């Protein structure tokens, strides 16, 4: 881990130039792409997410770190070979039917990606049918739903019912979140997990799938 101290620091600070330079020098030194990704970038972003959850850092700082990571990942991409880099899991995410708010959902998607999940973002106003269809198509491990309006929350339970009807409910874990959403509501509609912010969404997703 100490090998990645400078990279980790620059991603934490959101210093894109420095982070990219550190990634490049690690590559030049022959460090494995998998290690740079896991021990350098993802481990750092895990910590960033945790610090955000605890209120130690704030949204712009988290965004900046994520941006730095994205730029570093671009450098690594050409070296990825099939089967080289193992994803933590597939996440299908969207803001539910009738709701156009995407800020929270985007933060969660970004942090999930930063943590090493493969994320498919369906955008806003996603109908239950749309969630079902995409679930059939890409077979995600997690379906994550977001709502900002209390009045649109029932669409979460409708989506879960639709997954059930399509015979998909047992094949995925369902996570929900958003300002009006509570842990109690998640239990009531039989979602598998609730997360209160983007940082804890990552922790909950890992827990659900039993990945480190």
């Amino acid at each position, binding site marked *: 881990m100490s090998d990645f101290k400078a990279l980790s620091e620059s991603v934490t600070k959101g210093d894109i130039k420095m982070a990219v330079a550190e990634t490049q020098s690690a590559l030049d030194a022959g460090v494995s792409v998998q290690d740079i990704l896991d021990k350098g970038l993802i481990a750092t972003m895990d910590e960033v997410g945790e610090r955000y959850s605890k209120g130690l850092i*704030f*949204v712009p700082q988290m965004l900046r770190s994520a941006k730095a990571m994205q730029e570093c990942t671009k450098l690594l991409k050409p070296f990825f070979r099939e089967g080289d880099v193992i994803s933590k899991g597939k996440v299908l995410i969207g803001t539910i039917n*009738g709701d156009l708010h995407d800020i929270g959902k985007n*933060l969660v998607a970004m942090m999930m990606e930063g943590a090493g999940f493969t994320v498919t973002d369906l955008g*806003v*106003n996603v109908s239950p049918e749309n969630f079902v269809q995409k679930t059939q198509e890409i077979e995600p491990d997690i379906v994550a739903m977001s709502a900002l309006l209390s*009045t649109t929350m029932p669409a979460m339970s409708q989506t879960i019912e639709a997954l059930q009807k399509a015979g998909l409910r047992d094949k995925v874990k369902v996570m929900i979140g958003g300002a*009006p959403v509570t842990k109690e509501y998640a239990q009531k509609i039989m979602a598998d997990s609730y997360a209160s912010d983007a940082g804890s969404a990552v922790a909950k997703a890992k827990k659900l799938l039993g990945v480190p």
Partner: protein
Amino acid sequence: MLIVGEKINTSRKSIEEAVRKRDAASIAKVAREQADAGAHYIDVNAGTFLDQEVDCLCWLVETIQNEVALPLCLDSPNPKALYEAMKRHKGEPMINSISLEEGRFQAILPIITSQPCHIVALCMAKTAMPTTVEERVQVGSELIEKLTDEGIPLEKIYVDPLVQPVSVNTSMGIATLGAINKIMNDFPGVNTICGLSNISFGLPERRLINRNFLALCMSYGLSAVILDPTDQQLMATLITVEMLLGRDEYCGNFIDAYQNGRFTGC
């Protein structure tokens, strides 16, 4: 500056509990506090009750209007809740809100044309949230035109330009301010309204950010605001900025507020 008191919203734990228990005294107290602090309208939102929203909203309307002689701002996207609450409301309510979102305009329209009321026109487009000044102005203008075509007077329309967090995109403050300015200039007589707290999502010292944003909004022409009127520092900002913008003859309100101890601790 027209003030809508925001505190009676069931997304707040204490209000949720009071509504659940039908604790009229607690609700009356929060309504009274806001009226005494200078609110012109009392916002009521029972959205968290989902399928019981209609009953809760109606109960709130009656409970609050038994206590204070103020009109209410009926805050819900649910046409049925708005319709039932409006029937029980004394005087002209403010309806919060109509927008261009799919189905929403057509669903809310018959309600707001059925009796005199004020209407908040939220700058939500059909399938997306506007991000730039131009997008906000475009949606706002379309809403104003559609509403005035239906015979609603310009003075009763309150365009909400949408406030989005500056933490996510640093141009979001300017996007709202620019939209307020343009809409107020393009449609003389129309009102603009917004809540403040979205601006500070994801940042520390949110109240500090909110009250500075209020001052900026006012200087760009905002004519109504949804806020907590019992927040002394926020109200002190509002009163001071009104004076600085030349809307306080002989600085009377400012001096009154000072003499009544409303600036202590600011």
